[in-house]
């Protein structure tokens, strides 16, 4: 018998897990609330550290997930737990009886408007990392017109308890360095400043792009959180930070400010979590069975998690997490699920 598996979220994690589970012979149903698959990846132009086109990666994911039953523009309306399986009613009217549910609800980008002092949505020349990616993709944005001085503010909505997020979003430093290089490539005469608190360039080749940004593109890295942005008479921005290395307050006039919005738990993911009565930790991301040994299992048997639903992850980490989740689902559906008699016992022992 082919087990039904419902995957919630058609971003990279959902797509990768669908492809893997389909290969294993399961009957996969993938739902995505947006009209298009791909999640944030679909909105991105190039990916760090090697500036690989995002479309290329997404294309690969979509191709390998071909044949998976996909419902876009679809959300979960209700979920009932049956004995072992889940009865899921979708917003498109379809009801799915699923033996395992994978929540790959991803993340939301922090709403930069909330950092009022940065003036996103108020000053003309402030944009976010997502806006800049959109510019790279489409080549047009009224804010970008041969800017002379460009600033990147790291940690917007990350490592900021006042924004409700204590933790690091993991991807913004590398994204900022990547975007700094790309904007320098687009406007070679521009001066680019990155305002950072710590440069968290932990991954392979990340340090290389940092060095490249300094050496080849002359990007200036200033250690200090951007504190205040105001608009000058001519529409340029005056930004203030402390250069904490120099131990002095600093100001500079910018033509463009890019805010590196961090990752926040997905709001729609949380709604699904509420339906499933899933535990959410203090940081807003879903709790897992064990952060080290069972990072893809939720505390509820049969509910699995993958990708940024359990905290900020880079794309390769998300994909690896999705593959791991597929393995976990397979293990559950072959070792625990079929044994109806000892199901509860097995769940206690092995979940």
């Amino acid at each position, binding site marked *: 018998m082919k087990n039904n598996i419902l995957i919630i979220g058609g971003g990279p994690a959902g797509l990768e897990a669908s492809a893997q589970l389909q290969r294993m012979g399961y009957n996969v149903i993938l739902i995505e609330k947006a009209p298009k698959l791909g999640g944030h990846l679909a909105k991105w132009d190039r990916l760090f550290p090697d500036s690989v086109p995002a479309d290329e990666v997404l294309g690969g994911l979509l191709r390998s997930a071909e044949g998976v039953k996909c419902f876009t523009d679809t959300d979960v309306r209700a979920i009932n737990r049956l004995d072992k399986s889940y009865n899921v009613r979708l917003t498109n009217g379809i009801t799915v009886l699923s033996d395992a549910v994978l929540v790959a609800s991803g993340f939301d980008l922090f709403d930069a*408007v909330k950092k009022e002092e940065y003036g996103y949505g*108020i*000053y*003309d020349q402030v944009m976010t990392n997502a806006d800049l990616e959109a510019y790279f993709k489409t080549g047009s944005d009224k804010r970008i017109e041969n800017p002379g001085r460009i600033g990147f503010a790291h940690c917007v909505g990350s490592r900021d308890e006042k924004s409700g997020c204590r933790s690091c979003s993991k991807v913004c430093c590398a994204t900022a360095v990547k975007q700094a290089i790309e904007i320098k490539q687009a406007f070679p005469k521009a001066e680019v400043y990155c305002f950072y608190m710590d440069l968290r360039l932990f991954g392979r080749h990340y340090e290389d792009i940092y060095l490249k940004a300094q050496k080849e593109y002359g990007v200036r890295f200033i250690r200090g959180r951007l504190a205040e942005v105001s*608009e000058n008479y001519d529409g340029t921005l005056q930004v203030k930070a402390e250069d904490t290395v120099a131990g002095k307050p600093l100001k500079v006039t910018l033509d463009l400010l890019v805010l590196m919005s961090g990752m926040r738990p997905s709001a729609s993911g949380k709604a699904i979590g509420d339906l499933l009565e899933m535990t959410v930790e203090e940081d807003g991301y879903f709790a897992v069975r064990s952060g080290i040994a069972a990072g893809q299992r939720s505390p509820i048997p049969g509910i699995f998690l993958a990708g940024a639903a359990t905290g900020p992850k880079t794309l390769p980490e998300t994909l690896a997490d999705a593959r791991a989740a597929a393995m976990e689902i397979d293990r559950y559906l072959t070792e625990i699920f079929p044994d109806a008699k000892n199901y509860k016992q097995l769940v206690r022992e092995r979940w």
Partner: protein
Amino acid sequence: MIYEGKQKIWSEYQKEIPDDHYFYVRSCIRQSFFPASEATFLDITRNRLGKDIFETEHHTTCGGIAYHSDTIPQETVMTIIARQFALMAKNGYENYVCSCITSFGLYCETMETWREFPELEAKIRENLWKTCKLEFAKPKFLIHASDLIYKYRNLIAAQAVRKLVNVHTGEPLKVVEHIGCHYSKMFPSKGVGGAEYPYVLTGMIEAWGGEIVDYPERRHCCGFGFRQYFIKGNRGYSLSNTHKKFESMEPFKPDLIITNCPGCPYFLDRWQYVIAESTGKTYGPDGHGIPALTYEEVAGLVMGYDPWDLGLQTHQIGPEPLLDKMGVEYDPAKKYLGKNGKNIGEPLPCTCLKG
């Protein structure tokens, strides 16, 4: 500047302001700096808007200046405040309106502290009983006097005889709004419009036909800074801070600065004189300064009060160019005549700053 973006933020920082029956407490320093402002406030609220506003001669300083200068402990300050609250309760009021921003901030701070540490509130209650044999009740609404004017800005506009418009060009006057630091920077939710883009004064200017100027250093302190001013060795820092603000607003060519704090109009006014006389730099047109007025003075001007009744002669920066722009009629001969018709004394002419 994206106006809609600001509106969105303003909509998130709205504050409930009661309709009537206010207990009013004056500001220590405003009474001596710009005494007519508080008088005008009472006149507008009582006589023009017909509100019940009560004040008692028994209220004292809130202790804020001493507190911010680190000369008295917090518990002392809280006990003083508790006494003011007791006066309010004794007189049957629960809407506490203060004229001073320092006081407003301190009241907010005290109430928040009590909320977090109820045992402290209990202790203060005990202190107050021991010292004054009084019992206090916390105000139901704690508001600043400018919140009230903000609330009635449209009523005032309806009674206005003129707008904040240059009568010669028809252009709205460019107004810099300067909020006292302790109005909303400590507790953004306690101020109308929050801390980053406060709306309390902006709302008045918009209602009265002026145009708000959003200059880069608008968030900064006027320069008073308590210890920065009080200690002469630090006074250069106070001056430098004000100087930074004027350098920043200069390109916008503002016609007027509106403030809601006791110290701000004073320092934005007097330091222009010091900057002019020590460096030769003036910020208004033709060697004049930029008038820094209180919101009551601005309200009074639009409502047709006589400028000398509003106390505009107590400003270092001469108000005449502004009055001319607004089309306000005034008698120059009466500028330095007191209420009793006697000369109140005239300042010596300045070298650099034009009167």
